[in-house]
């Protein structure tokens, strides 16, 4: 009996080698970080580096073209479609973000009040956000169809138009159409995120301001808005990044047409890189987004930091 007791004791005192390694903080930290590092490396760092290398080469699908320096960038700079895509991307991102912010904020303020059936409405508002984009975009494509458009039908029945509107066939209208769809899809994200932000603001502050003599609009401007600003900035940042690099919506709605009038960075890069097989040029177009996005992110992060430390 005594021998067994000692053996058990011994094992408790000296852990097995593997356990001992994990008790060392440095090894443990490394072990815990490893999965993340591998995932980031594999799915972010590698494609990014590969993209940069591709953009500096003359590779095409199936053909290795060798190093050409900045020739691809020079080429796209002189490409009028690329310039349109750059302008489109900024226009698309700017207009949709402004609308999404205003509509989202308005909805959030409404939903922050107490009324019956609030939970259902809140759930319903999320619908555009949770339906797969491709699916909902196809529905919109039908609604904008030159022949079967329900929008045209409704406008016609209301007596507002006499002929058909070719929503996706006219360059300006096509851009407006995809902007509408993007706003429809993006408002729920703004509304729900801003609502979450609103709910962290104590209702007592509103009451204090009401007693202090502030009318509803002033209560919003002097109390709610400044306190909501950090959340708003984060939401805008997320949305700008996503919208700037948007692909599926435009791809499904117009495919970049009519006559390449609605291309964004991503759809044009896809058309050149995958559609026509000019991998290196496509990579250069994608990479051209990078400095813009970097700038937007830096400016907004700096601003958020300033707001939060105020």
């Amino acid at each position, binding site marked *: 009996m005594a021998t067994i007791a000692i053996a058990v004791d011994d094992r408790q005192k000296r852990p097995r080698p593997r356990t001992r390694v994990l008790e060392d903080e440095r090894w443990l930290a490394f072990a815990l970080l490893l999965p993340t590092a591998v995932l980031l490396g594999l799915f972010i760092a590698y494609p990014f580096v590969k993209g940069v290398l591709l953009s500096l080469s003359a590779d095409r699908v199936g053909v290795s073209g060798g190093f050409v320096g900045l020739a691809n960038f020079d080429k796209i700079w002189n490409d009028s479609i690329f310039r349109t895509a750059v302008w489109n991307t900024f226009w698309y991102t700017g207009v949709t973000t402004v609308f999404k912010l205003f509509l989202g904020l308005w909805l959030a303020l409404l939903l922050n009040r107490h009324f019956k059936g609030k939970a259902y409405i809140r759930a319903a508002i999320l619908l555009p956000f949770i339906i797969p984009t491709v699916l909902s975009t196809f529905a919109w494509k039908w609604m904008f169809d030159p022949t079967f458009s329900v929008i045209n039908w409704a406008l016609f029945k209301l007596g507002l138009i006499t002929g058909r509107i070719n929503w996706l066939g006219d360059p300006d209208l096509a851009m407006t159409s995809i902007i509408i769809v993007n706003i429809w899809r993006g408002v729920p994200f703004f509304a729900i995120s801003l609502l979450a932000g609103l709910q962290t603001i104590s209702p*007592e502050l509103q009451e204090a301001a*009401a*007693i*202090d003599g*502030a009318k509803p609009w002033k209560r919003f401007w002097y109390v709610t808005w400044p*306190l909501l600003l950090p959340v708003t900035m984060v939401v805008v940042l997320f949305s700008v990044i996503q919208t700037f690099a948007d692909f599926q919506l435009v791809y499904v709605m117009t495919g970049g047409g009519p006559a390449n009038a609605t291309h964004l960075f991503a759809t044009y890069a896809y058309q050149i890189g995958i559609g026509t097989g000019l991998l290196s040029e496509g990579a250069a177009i994608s990479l051209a987004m990078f400095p813009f996005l970097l700038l937007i992110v830096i400016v907004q992060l700096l601003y958020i930091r300033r707001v939060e430390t105020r």
Partner: protein
Amino acid sequence: MAQVVIRDLNKKFDEVHAVKNVNLHIKDKEFMVFVGPSGCGKTTTLRMVAGLESITSGEVLINDTVVNELPPMDRDIAMVFQNYALYPHMSVYDNMAFGLKMRKFERAEIAKRVQEAADILDIGQLLKRKPRQLSGGQRQRVALGRAIVRHPQVFLFDEPLSNLDAKLRVQMRVELKKLHNRLGTTAIYVTHDQVEAMTLGDRVVVMKDGVVQQVGAPLELYNQPANRFVAGFIGSPAMNFATVSLAEHDGAVWVEGPDFRIRPPQSSAGRLRGHAGRQVVLGIRPEDLRVANGSDPADLGFDAVVEVTEQLGSEILLDVKAGPASMVASVEPTVPAKVGDRLRLALNPDRLHFFDTQTEAAI
């Protein structure tokens, strides 16, 4: 100059009847305290006076004007909230100035009033700070400052000291009292702490389940509680209660407990005579019990066993068992009582309270 009159005030939240037929007259310059356990309707009543809660029925009048339909900003009141409700993104100065800015005061007048309030509250050195850089006590002062710069007709306080630690609470209580003496503004103060109510109030309203139980000066509530609830709520440690029978022998009324028998003084006998032969609730405050000595009459004492002793320095609280009844007695710190001791306690005959077992009203 402002008086607040509350007439037949009711508040219903769906099924819950939170405030029931409250009638009060708060005089000009009076410091009125609403006290009661949580959920008694005191805060709801205050919020209806403030205009933050709609009124189901009844009327609130400030200076003879019915204010039921007036928004909070037009009632000329200022409120101090439990969690201070300071605007976190504004400096202390801006917090205090906000109400004046909204009312379009001149810049110089705002600066003068803020400085004045800051001097009174001794927060002049904090004006540039943000609320999060302040301690709880400092935030409380800023919240008070925001209320006083406006020179309102009525101050409303919603448990303003409950987030402070015990020591600071006592200190702020004294300062609030001084502030009220200095400004003389009519004040309504809500608290669940009966000590705050007793020390601050000119008069105190005790509420329970939405109903006013008693309105009166602090000592009036303490000495002549209207019912068993008020008797138990006011005073610390709480009043002792024991169910006893009243019996009439040889023309005298006797109070008969399970293990004791006492004869109340002639003064209260008259009131009790009508209840002879019935059970009533006897109430006696811990400070009206003491250890009996030889000179005490035999029929004003009872035997008890000490279960717990609590040394407070200035007094000892004895938790005793007298028959089936548990009681607390507050005795001289020199009494050498130990757990398990048997001793004889004497009642102060002039300080006995009796309550009806059914209605709980004082007899």
